[in-house]
């Protein structure tokens, strides 16, 4: 879809630069005159929102690193000092902590958008896979960042998650010790997590560059799932990115920032955990160890495997299920056998997708609860069982429903083109 470049340098300097480093041309072709389907809805604004939040996290993070002390004796107090004594530190710290949550809200909406509209299908498989890589890097970054304030949840969360690697047969213990740099989570662990937490966002930024590159080769997908036509008809299906989508993205970003600011200024600790205001103490475990909300669904999958599967014991099984839940996203483009991208034209699968969203939220609910508690007080119906059922559905959606539905489902009639869809003359 990216046709010949329309950039024409106007001044002598830009002509000189263009023949040596065509960076203005790159920006022009990518963000100004980039032909974008004219029918994108607001679900397509989350890419821009994510870019804004990556910048917010990097900027506030660099600032926090100017005041933070990665030492087991001083880390907790240094974060408190940021909140109390550093000029505007309370605001910057709140932006960074809540920014992580809003980053994940946006990335989840972005991913569900991709799942619903089939954004992972050819020719956008690499684009999708790069997105999953970014998501994985975000999870690693968020996990290590949460350890840094060195509160009780930081410490015990780190204990629980690093203990997962001990489930790996034969070398698990050695890997865990290597991760820790000692015999438990301690000074060495904190210091290396700080180093990596600072490094990874820049790697994310690099992969985001690849993600945008991979987006600009085939161009955006869109709600009807049809490619924009080539040649003369291209103009009828698309609009230049600027000003049409710059202004639409700007509007969505501002609305999202408003919700973000409500949390930053009025509910700064609602998404955190009270126990993290208690300094880390290796002698006392909190009553319930819960990860940050954005990890809860995976935490529920981890705990859903309570039984041995052949030679795989329950602990390793849980770890495999948890990582499998993410790994399966890498092969999703080849699991979905349907030629139709958008769920709009898949009357049955659409319902399965709806239940998939419910299952994901339900897993989050299970992750937050004690597995032995009863769901809504229904005696006998433990959260464990709900979690197991939803875990089963999670995997069935990818491994059974999508492959089978692509073959058996009869899609609805699709419009002839994006233009036709927009004009309603299907």
């Amino acid at each position: 879809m990216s046709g010949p470049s329309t950039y024409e340098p106007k001044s002598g300097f830009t002509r000189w630069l263009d023949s040596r480093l065509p960076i203005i041309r790159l920006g022009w072709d990518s963000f100004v005159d980039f032909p974008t389907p004219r029918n994108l809805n607001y679900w397509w604004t989350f890419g821009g929102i994510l870019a804004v939040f990556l910048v917010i996290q990097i900027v506030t993070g660099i600032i926090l690193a100017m005041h933070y002390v990665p030492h087991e004796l001083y880390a907790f107090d240094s974060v408190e000092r940021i909140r109390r004594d550093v000029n505007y530190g309370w605001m910057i710290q709140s932006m960074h902590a809540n920014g992580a949550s809003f980053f994940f809200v946006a990335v989840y909406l972005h991913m569900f958008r991709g799942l619903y509209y089939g954004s992972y299908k050819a020719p956008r498989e690499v684009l999708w896979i790069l997105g999953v890589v970014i998501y994985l890097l975000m999870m690693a970054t968020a996990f290590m960042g949460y350890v840094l304030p060195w509160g009780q949840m930081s410490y015990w969360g780190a204990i629980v998650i690093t203990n997962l690697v001990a489930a790996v047969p034969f070398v698990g213990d050695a890997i865990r010790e290597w991760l820790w740099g000692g015999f438990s989570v301690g000074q060495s662990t904190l210091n290396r997590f700080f180093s990596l937490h600072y490094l990874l966002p820049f790697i994310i930024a690099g992969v985001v560059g690849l993600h945008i590159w991979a987006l600009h080769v085939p161009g955006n997908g869109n709600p009807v799932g049809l490619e924009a036509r080539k040649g003369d008809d291209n103009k009828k299906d698309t609009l230049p990115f600027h000003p049409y989508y710059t202004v639409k993205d700007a509007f969505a970003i501002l609305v999202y920032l408003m919700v973000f600011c409500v949390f930053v200024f009025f509910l700064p600790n609602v998404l955190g955990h009270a126990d993290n205001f208690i300094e880390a103490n290796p002698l006392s475990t909190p009553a319930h160890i819960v990860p940050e909300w954005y990890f809860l669904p995976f935490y529920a999958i981890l705990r859903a495997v309570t039984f041995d599967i052949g030679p795989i014991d329950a602990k390793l099984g849980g770890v495999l299920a948890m990582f499998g839940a993410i790994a399966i996203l890498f092969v999703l483009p080849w699991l979905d056998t349907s030629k139709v991208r958008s769920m709009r034209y898949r009357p049955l699968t659409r319902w399965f997708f709806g239940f998939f969203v419910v299952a994901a939220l339900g897993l989050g609910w299970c992750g937050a609860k004690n597995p032995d508690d009863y769901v809504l007080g229904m005696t006998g119906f433990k959260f464990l069982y709900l979690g197991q059922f939803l875990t089963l559905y999670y995997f069935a959606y990818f491994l059974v429903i999508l492959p089978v539905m692509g073959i058996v489902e009869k899609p609805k009639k699709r419009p002839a083109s994006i233009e036709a869809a927009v004009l309603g003359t299907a």
Partner: protein
Amino acid sequence: MTEANGALGEDGQEPSRRDFIYIAAGGMAAVGGGLVVWPFIDQMNPAADTLALGSIRVDVSQLLPGSEMTVMWRGAPVFIRHRTEEEIAEARNVELSDLPDQDARNENAGMEGVPAIDANRVLRSEFLIVKGNCTHLGCVPTSQETNAGGEYDAWYCPCHGSHYDKSARIRRGPAPENLPVPDYFFETEAVVKLGLSDDESAIAGWTVA
């Protein structure tokens, strides 16, 4: 479908209102950008706990004539010397023209650029209070207390051989300026406060001699 080439301005609307919206949006973005940048810059300024130690109070009542103490203030040494009558006389018996630096280097309000006579360098003649970093390259001079006071038996910087006199003025060597006098006043007979607010500067009692 008039925007075939994506250009604006063919929609027939009056341009004034349209332009106003764009200018307003651009203006808002600029204002917001400016405002959000300030906290990110200000966070690098000294924090509240650092500022809390920006001024300190020192009890000099135990300091006997002919002895001195060094206090840490704002991360650097300050010399406080209780001078004897002889030391004061020696410090005052110097011609201004003999001084390499004839500026009193007194940092108190109203004392900018006054001549470097001893009376302009002290609030009470028996207490000499100066910052303890050589004006050459910042070493800490040694003192007569340890018999290392140099040619004038006061202070001497061993790094590059700068000699200071009984008023801590540079007399010989590479240092370009006298040891500076920090902003201070006597809160009570016994207590010196280093680092003054504007109000305190006004009542500190510094006058040009």
